[in-house]
């Protein structure tokens, strides 16, 4: 199925090295997920009044400048662009004018990159070592019941600055997908994780807090899952009540990290002395950056 990694920098100095460390963690999860890899990075906030999109094009020679948005940077077949105003509007416009492009993420700080292939190649192609940022999530995929495609890779965007990675296998996602479609959520794949992401989007849209939405998973999702959710300010972890899929958390003064296996955390500075623990089933764990004074 999959490998999950997440890194949250408590120490601002570590933010400069977010990319290389996340990359090292991701490569440790190669065995768990040889099919595709993806990361969500939280960095470079869009200026006030602007929003940020990450777009994907199947065309490696895509002319990103022609979209009428400000191109920040391009990596492999992805581009980060700034749009004036609300992220929703920008996203709707892109979907309407260029349905062939994939909107990977939308918000103010999030950027999502994902591609088929092994994590080491992914890290190279996307120059992961260049990245700085406050926190990031990564995922390596072993596709279970859906095809190995870029769209089917994780992280899945669930709303502004929100994303989800998943290790496990849901069992009631098909009926849930139908119900969410009727609520106006749009799906692009047959992937079970996309349904979980859509569920969170829906609950948040209907006014739930992130914690309530995650707790809702315990009632409304069936199957096995370890979820790692990225938010603008941090991340959250949840395991299903049976908790067969692995999850390890580690913390030092400088960072909080989460991974499917300890060896992905072992690459971090100070890992040998870190406090290590496993999240309990059915409990939401969340970390947030304190708002700067």
């Amino acid at each position, binding site marked *: 199925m999959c490998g999950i990694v997440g890194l949250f920098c408590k120490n601002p100095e570590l933010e400069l090295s977010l990319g290389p460390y996340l990359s090292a963690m991701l490569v440790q999860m190669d065995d768990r997920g040889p099919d595709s890899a993806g990361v969500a990075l939280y960095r470079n906030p869009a200026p006030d009044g602007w929003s940020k999109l990450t777009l994907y094009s199947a065309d490696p020679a895509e002319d990103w400048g022609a979209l009428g948005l400000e191109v920040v940077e391009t990596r492999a077949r992805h581009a980060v662009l700034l749009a004036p105003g609300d992220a929703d509007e920008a996203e709707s416009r892109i979907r309407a004018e260029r349905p062939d492009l994939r909107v990977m993420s939308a918000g103010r700080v999030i950027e999502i990159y994902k591609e088929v292939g092994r994590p080491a190649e992914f890290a190279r192609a996307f120059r992961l070592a260049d990245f700085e940022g406050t926190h990031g999530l990564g995922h390596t995929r072993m596709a279970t019941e859906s095809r190995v495609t870029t769209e089917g890779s994780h992280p899945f965007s669930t709303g502004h600055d929100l994303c989800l990675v998943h290790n496990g296998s849901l069992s009631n996602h098909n009926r849930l997908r139908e119900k969410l479609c009727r609520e106006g959520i749009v799906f692009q794949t047959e992937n079970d994780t996309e349904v979980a992401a859509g569920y969170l989007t829906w609950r948040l849209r209907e006014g739930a807090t992130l914690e309530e939405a995650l707790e809702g998973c315990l009632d409304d999702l069936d199957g096995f899952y370890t979820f790692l959710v990225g938010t603008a300010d941090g991340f959250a972890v949840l395991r299903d009540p*049976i*908790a*067969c899929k*692995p999850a*390890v958390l580690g913390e030092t003064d400088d960072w909080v990290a989460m991974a499917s*296996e*300890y*060896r*992905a*955390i*072992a*690459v971090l500075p100070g890992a*040998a002395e870190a406090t*290590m*623990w*496993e999240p*309990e*089933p059915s409990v939401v764990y969340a970390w947030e950056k304190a708002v700067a004074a």
Partner: protein
Amino acid sequence: MGAGAVGRVRVGEGSGRLSVETEVELETVDLAATPLRELNQRLHDAESGRFRIVNPNGAHAVACGLRAPLDVEILGHVGYYCAGMNQHAHVRVRGNAGTGLAENLMSGSVVVEGNASQSAGATGRGGLLVIHGNAAARCGISMKGIDIVVRGSIGHMSAFMAQRGCLVVCGDTGDALGDSLYEAHLYVRGAVAGLGADCVEKPMRDHHAAELQSLLARAGFDDLDPSDFRRYGSARRLYNFAVDNAGSY
């Protein structure tokens, strides 16, 4: 004395017998430099010896399938299945261990100074597993004769279908302890979050207390008093399929 061994001979310790004490050389293997396959092959080929493994960095299957009375010390955290299916050897992990620590242990011992992840001691058939920290879910699942002593607490679904052997928990247990329990003996000192199907508290008789005392001593936890523990065992109501048990399945 064998090549490479440092030998010291002491004669006539009281009984007139020749007493030979040999300090066996310690062999250190650095997993950052040596492939795991080479380490495990070395351990499989050795008939005796002391080994120190450094930089495990969460590697899986470290020191598994051992079959001789080796002494193995691991400095750091290991991944899944450390000491899996071991016989006769004594393994000490100075760190944490991942899923399936000492799975199907046959004999010998495994000691972990940190915490153990899921399914510690799973299907173990003999030997002693000691965890100084906590163990996660499914500790002792399907155990078949292993003795497990945990200084800290254990997670949910522990001792699921536990058939034989002893599980001693000095801390608390999670939910569904001993679900579908057979004949394993469970001793718990702290709180039990919930009992599984057919697992009930049972009176602690003298021979149970003696068994518990012996296990605590073997684990090095002599500071604990057996009378602070409670015993749990099978109610044996699920031993034969019957319509009235339908709710338990």
